[in-house]
């Protein structure tokens, strides 16, 4: 069969169409590697422990948005995971989907292309299916603030909580600056210390 110009064009046209269809169904398999071995541009699957989650919370401490998640594995390397726009919403919902929420210490798996920004390795999630909780290790309960007044309150700018309405120090806190806890344990978990006056009052 002689290869005329038209035949070559037909073969190329057919090859391109078949090739595009093939690529549509072909899935790239990410490489499973350790964080210390990654390079910029690698398409990888990494399993690591959450070292930190940078969150944006509302005034009652409910999670509004995830800024980034930092993970680390046993190779000693660490990596940041970012998500933007709709993927960020999906990630935030995913983090909140467990009880307690996904936190530091939990083991997760992430798939994506490694990028470098400001000298740090990061993966920008393009789909929530590329982020998965593998094992929940941190079962510390989630602490939220009460939207309605309770007996346990503090200033949002301080580190002392009060349990008495008559506390002369507590009375000074303006209503706009008050935060309310569900329990004293919550206040202590968040690093607040009981007011001495309220301590003595409750002792009496």
């Amino acid at each position, binding site marked *: 069969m002689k290869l005329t110009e038209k035949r070559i064009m037909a073969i190329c046209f057919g090859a391109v169409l078949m090739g*595009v269809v093939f690529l549509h169904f072909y899935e*790239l398999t990410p490489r499973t590697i350790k964080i210390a071995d990654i390079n910029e541009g690698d398409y990888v699957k990494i399993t690591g422990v959450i070292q930190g989650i940078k969150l944006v919370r509302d005034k009652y401490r409910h999670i509004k948005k995830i800024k980034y998640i930092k993970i680390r594995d046993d190779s000693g390397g660490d990596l940041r995971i970012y998500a933007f726009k709709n993927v960020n919403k999906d990630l935030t919902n995913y983090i909140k989907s467990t009880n307690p929420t996904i936190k530091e210490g939990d083991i997760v798996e992430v798939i994506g292309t490694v990028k470098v920004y400001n000298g740090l390795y990061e993966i920008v999630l393009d789909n929530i299916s590329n982020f998965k909780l593998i094992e929940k290790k941190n079962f510390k309960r989630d602490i939220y603030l009460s939207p309605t007044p309770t007996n346990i309150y503090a200033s949002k700018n301080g580190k002392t909580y009060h349990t008495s309405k008559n506390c002369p120090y507590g009375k000074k806190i303006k209503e706009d600056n008050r935060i309310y806890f569900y329990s004293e344990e919550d206040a202590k978990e968040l690093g607040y210390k009981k007011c001495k006056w309220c301590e003595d009052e409750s002792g009496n």
Partner: protein
Amino acid sequence: MNQAINPFNLIFLFLGCICGTFTGLLPGIHPNTLIPISLLILPYIGSQNYVCFLIGIVITHYFINYIPSSFIGVPDDETAVSVLPLHNLTLKGYGYEGVMLCGFGGFFGIIISIFLFFILLFINIDIYGTYQSFKPFIPYVLILLLFISVIFSKNRFWSIVVIILSGLFGIEVLYNHSSVSNILTAIFTGMFGIPLLLENLKKNKINHQIITFPNLNVSILKYVFVGTIGGFIRIFLPAIGGAQINFFLSKLIRENNIKNFLVSQGAITLSNEVFSILALLLIGYGRSGTAVAIKNLSINLHFNIIVYMLIGAGVGYAILCSVSKYFLRYISYVNYGKISFYLVLFCSAVVFILGYFSNYLFYYLVVYAISACIGILCVKSKVNMSYMMSVLVFPTVLYYIMH
């Protein structure tokens, strides 16, 4: 300039120019492929010297790149529009003139770019703010530019076919799949390198070359200026290559004069690279691979890089003048078909090696093969090669619309 010119920086600038000479002669090698390789020497020479080396290699590469485009007929995404007129000039015996015109455009394009940069600095225009307000319109501008290019094309049916096939291919590789490092090398080598090399396999010799500097007049600077503006506008249009900007410009200014066309080609490519690097000084961010590499070094950039760019431009143009003369003296004696055959093997080897080290060799080779088929279809149907840039335009439009 608040920093003196360091002699060591100059040495690395010249070293970069020498390396850029070799890389510019090799078809299928794009500056973005050079940058990861060049990073290997960074720990040994320091950041400031590396910046000068990078400037030298990239500017000279773009100058010298006109040689394989013109003499062998192997373009890249930057020279895709100019390759046929340049190559036709070579086949007629006037290759040197064609290359000199592109080099002239590039050299003066760099000078005008620097001049425009100082004007922008003086009037203190908020380029970043302008870009942010322009960003939502980018996908529609890209669609409009594609539409205009189809309207002006001679072979509308095949132009549309090539645009759609390239675009769908680009969506699959660059949007639907996670990005694989250096996949653009496989795409551009396949699309722009292989088809013309395969066409040249049938040729044995080309005409004897006449080595004369072209007659230039002052009016040619008008086209350098137009090309420089095109290079500046290109910064705001992601995915649009120099070839496409020049194609749109050539339709808008209705330019039929080959000399003016080639001069504006040279200006667009070099001015775009220079503007991209200078944007680092203006807004702290640049679009080209070189600008991103310099930004990632996290060093304080000083205005003395302008001097290094000017020196690099002068050296690059001088090397272009002498190397192209040397090439042309001997090109009519060599077996053209054999050179093209070895270049096909070389380009394929580069893609194979990059694919092997990316750990996705099969995927790389499939992408390379499809790119080559699109390129062959484009050449056989006599459609302008710049239409294949839809491979970048379609995924970019999709990305901006969906995000």
